[in-house]
Structure formats: C-alpha cells, structure tokens
C-alpha cells in the first residue's frame, strides 16, 4: 500500500522501471559518477565518442568503470552539425557500443546549442533505414515531433530549455500540446532540467521520463542530488497516475464549516 504497484515503461521493446535517463559527463570524479548513477536508480546512461590519442588511457578507465555498472547505454551524437557527421558517428557508436540505440543530436546553432529541426528529421530518416533505434533530441515543436514520428522514431525527446541552462520547462504549453497530440509514443524531456521540481513538473504533464546530466553532475553533492531526482521522478509519475486536483480560482475551506461554534442565530 505504501509502495505503488510496478509501473514499467517500454522503449523500443525494452522495459524499464526508472523514468530517469542520466548522462555520464561533468562529474567531479569517476567514482562520484558511479555513486551518483547508482543513487539515481537510472537504468539508461548516455555516452559519446571522441578522438582517442593512443597515449592517454584515461578514456578507457572511464569506460571500464561505466561498463561495470551493467546499465543500458545510449550513445549520443553531441556536437555533430550535419546529417553526414551524425550518421557516421552513429555507425561508429553502433559498432563500438554494440547497440543500435542512438540519441540523435544535430546542433543547429552554437549559441543556444539547439537541435536543427530540419537536419534532425533528415538524419533520423536515414538512421532508421540503417536499422537504428533513434531517440531524437528536438525542440518543443509539435509539427517537428510529428514528422520525427512519421519517419519512424518510436520515442521523442523535446527539450525543456537549452542544454546546461537549468531553466526547467520554458514552455509548458507547448510540451502539453505535444503530449495531447502524440499520446501513442513515449515522450522524454531532454535538456534544461535544473532542479527536481522541474522533473516532477514534466512527469505531472504526462511525460514518460526525463533525461538530464548537468543538474546532477554539477550539484553541490551529486550523489545526494541523484537521490533527489530518483525520488522526484517517482513523485511526478505517481502524481500523473493519481490525477491532481483541479486548480481553482477562489479559496475553499478544507475544515468543515458546518457546526462552527460561537455563532448565534437571531
């Protein structure tokens, strides 16, 4: 009774319990990263590929440690500015990480680092033809989301706000519209989450999960913040299932007014 019945969700045929996807970057140390990922309860971790200089074995140490956590990995194409770059990097990720899952990012502007909607749709279409299971990072634009669905994406990841800003959900109205118009796909808010309250709000809106990195990795105490987000997604998800009270314009008392003492009919 105190613990809600199991409430799993499915991404490309794979079932998960945690609704928190978490990044592996920006932690003060690899050990803090491992502790934080464990504390978050997350089952899906984002990773990437970069040029390797033979000398430094640092990258490898990180990767060995991460593998030992036995999580599901979601490679990204962060930093790619063109369809071609994204497709090539995706193929390299598939070979090296041995997974056809891909968080697709095609940067459209170097100032707000927002996804390029047009290039993202084109890249998603190519990658799906190549057999990838695409998790597209996109803006909170309903029509872009519909096109990504139409080219075969089975999950969508609109942003909350620009990556690394921690501004939360800039445009709840748009996010809600996407949820209402695309009920058939799992939706994840990716980027911009700064505090657990943002995560709860996303799930209260009916989103199925959130993906974040900086908010945990750059917190004063990343491990404790990871636990905070673990509890936040649990809270938000249960709230969405339980159904919140309607917001009211005017006050109404909770304590019964009937039988109020000291009041004398005349």
């Amino acid at each position, binding site marked *: 009774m105190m613990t809600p019945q199991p409430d799993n969700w499915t991404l490309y045929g794979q079932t998960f319990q945690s609704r928190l996807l978490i990044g592996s970057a*920006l932690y003060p140390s690899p050990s803090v990263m491992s502790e934080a990922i464990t504390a978050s309860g997350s089952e899906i971790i984002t*990773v*990437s590929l*970069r040029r*390797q200089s033979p000398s430094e074995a640092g990258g490898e140490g990180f990767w060995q440690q991460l593998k030992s956590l036995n999580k599901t990995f979601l490679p990204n194409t962060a930093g790619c500015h063109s369809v071609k770059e994204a497709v090539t990097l995706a193929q*390299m990720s598939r070979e*090296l990480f041995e997974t056809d899952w891909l968080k697709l990012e095609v940067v459209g502007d170097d100032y707000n680092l927002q996804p390029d909607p047009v290039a993202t749709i084109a890249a998603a279409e190519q990658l799906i033809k190549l057999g990838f299971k695409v998790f597209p990072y996109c803006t909170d634009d309903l029509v872009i989301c519909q096109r990504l669905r139409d080219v075969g994406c089975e999950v969508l990841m609109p942003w909350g706000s620009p990556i690394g800003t921690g501004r939360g959900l800039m445009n709840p109205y748009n996010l809600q519209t996407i949820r209402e118009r695309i009920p058939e796909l799992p939706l994840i808010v990716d980027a911009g989450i700064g505090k657990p309250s943002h995560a709860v709000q996303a799930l209260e809106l009916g989103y199925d999960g959130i993906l974040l990195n900086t908010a945990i990795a750059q917190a004063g105490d990343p491990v404790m913040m990871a636990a905070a987000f673990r509890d936040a997604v649990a809270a938000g998800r249960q709230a969405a299932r339980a159904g919140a009270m309607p917001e009211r314009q005017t006050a109404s008392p909770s304590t019964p007014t009937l039988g109020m003492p000291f009041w004398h009919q005349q």
Partner: protein
Amino acid sequence: MILISLNNESRECDSELALAALLPAWGFDWKKIAVAINGDFVPRSQYSSLRLNAGDQVDVLAPVQGG
C-alpha cells in the same frame, strides 16, 4: 611512405600496410576504438583489406562521457 592525418595530426605511414596493421603500430587496440576515413565509417570487417591513400583523414574514436 605517404602523409595522412590521424585525428587531425599529420603522420607518415606505409601505404603498403593494411589498417589492421597500422592501428596497433599507432598504439590502438582495435577492440576499443572505431574508425572513420574522410568522414565515412569504416567497419572492422574492412580493417584487414583497407589501405590508406595520401591525404586521407583518419579519425580513431573511443568512448567518452556523454550527456
């Protein structure tokens, strides 16, 4: 010997050797990296046959933290 670019640094290499031979020579363990040449992905299955041409841009990537 030809001149190529490895991860954006120019290198001399023997145009007779296949990628499968060059990678360990460069200090890479092929099981821990992925390769692109001139922006195109090169699957491992081609390492043994593929030979580089002068001016080739070789990218050798390894796993890193991602958000």
